[in-house]
């Protein structure tokens, strides 16, 4: 080997030693949570998302924990969301793992810990792009998506002020119901709206809510007998996955109090300046 070759190799080794990779995320906690909560390791692991979707609720196992087979199919992608918040729950590794194990709904992936996203385009008080789809009527939305759209029966909320639909992201489509601020529904500094409800058919993959880094409080709740989570106490961030499946951190936005829950194979998200009880009351009333 010539001196020149050796020099080049040395220089590359020197370069390698001085390179900074992006920080490694805490995979150990996430992976452990996923393997512990999955069905006992059998000969094969479930791969068919369709089967998972139709599997009836069995509280003894986290069937709704997202499994991500078939990523390459995700050109159609979903909307993944990173929920981030700061530090309370991540104080001890024990708590952190407990939370990582508990959290998650179909289409919702979770990571506890890690830095907030580098770019947050929206901050409280600014106008924001909520990442909504095309504005349609409620009837129009019902024709466009392949799932029954639920609307709160609670007083005055049966007719949303605006309805948006996105048929492609996530796969299967998504509907957003927007309500203007009004008495009892103060404007959210994050959305300008009194209430924002998002509905989509939860796919085990890709996650709609991809990761959660908790700063505020996350509480497990039950909505109509099905699992849900209430995020409060501190704003969290969430990031959409775009139509190509890329997680685009520039789409990150801040979000306020949020309830996320499951209803059959629908995953629902409700955001507003509400108390947990108010949010639960609205959620329970959805038909």
């Amino acid at each position, binding site marked *: 080997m010539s001196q*020149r070759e050796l020099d080049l190799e040395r220089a590359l080794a020197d370069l390698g030693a001085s390179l900074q990779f992006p920080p490694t995320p805490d995979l150990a906690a996430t992976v452990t949570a996923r393997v512990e909560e999955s069905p006992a390791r059998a000969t094969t692991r479930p791969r068919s998302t369709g089967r998972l979707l139709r599997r009836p609720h069995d509280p003894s196992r986290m069937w709704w924990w997202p499994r991500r087979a078939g*990523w390459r199919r*995700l050109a159609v992608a979903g909307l993944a969301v990173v929920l981030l918040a700061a530090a309370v729950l991540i104080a001890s590794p024990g708590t952190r793992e407990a939370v990582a194990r508990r959290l998650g709904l179909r289409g919702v992936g979770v990571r506890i810990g890690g830095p907030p996203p580098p770019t947050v385009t929206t901050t409280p008080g600014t106008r924001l792009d909520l990442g909504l789809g095309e504005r349609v009527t409620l009837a129009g939305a019902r024709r466009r998506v392949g799932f029954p759209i639920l609307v709160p029966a609670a007083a005055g909320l049966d007719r949303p002020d605006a309805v948006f639909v996105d048929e492609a992201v996530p796969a299967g489509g998504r509907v957003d119901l927007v309500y203007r601020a009004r008495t009892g529904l103060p404007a959210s500094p994050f959305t300008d709206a009194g209430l924002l409800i998002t509905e989509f058919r939860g796919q085990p993959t890709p996650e709609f809510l991809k990761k959660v880094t908790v700063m505020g409080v996350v509480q497990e709740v039950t909505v109509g007998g099905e699992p849900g989570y209430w995020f409060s106490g501190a704003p969290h961030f969430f990031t959409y996955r775009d139509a190509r499946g*890329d997680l685009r951190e520039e789409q990150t936005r801040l979000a306020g109090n949020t309830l996320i829950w499951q209803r059959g194979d629908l995953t629902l998200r409700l955001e507003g300046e509400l108390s947990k009880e108010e949010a639960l009351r609205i959620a329970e009333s959805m038909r």
Partner: protein
Amino acid sequence: MEGRPLDEQELVERAREGDARAYEALVRRYQDLAFRTAYVIAGGAADAEDAAQEGFVKAWYALPRFRAGAPFRPWLLAIVANEARNRRRSGRRQDDLALRVAEDRPSGDAAPSPEAAALAGEQRRLLLAAVGRLGEADRQVIACRYFLELSEAEMAAALGCRRGTVKSRLSRALSRLRAAMAEPGGGAGGQLPMTRLPGGDR
């Protein structure tokens, strides 16, 4: 309290039997390696994280088929790298190897003067830029060897090629890198700018 940390083979054996704690220890041990390998292949931190996470989960399910006593690292890297390639193929943009050269990390024994450190930093940046201009296959083989310091078996696993072809692939990549360094704007006017780097005794 455990007296000594379990070695890799014990951890693998326990994980094979379904011990998630043992597997967690393995993940902790190799998450840097897995994430960085995925990063080199997928070309983005978010995809690398997905690939590494999914790779570890798949490896857990595949562990019963893992041959006892075989080296764990290449086996794991093959799974993770495959996940990373799938993500890359899913059509993400090419923001490859957006790595940075650390400023504060002299590699020599003696602390260099500020001038020497700046010079070394500049030379590293030039070299990194030249690596970045290579084709995907060349870039990956160089990154696997020199940035991730993988063994031949691990490189073959990560790159999805036979072990016998790793050497020739690396050698071709180095030739092209040398040529790229000699191009206008590719280095110091045809002269290898790295010949005066401090250190080099690694």
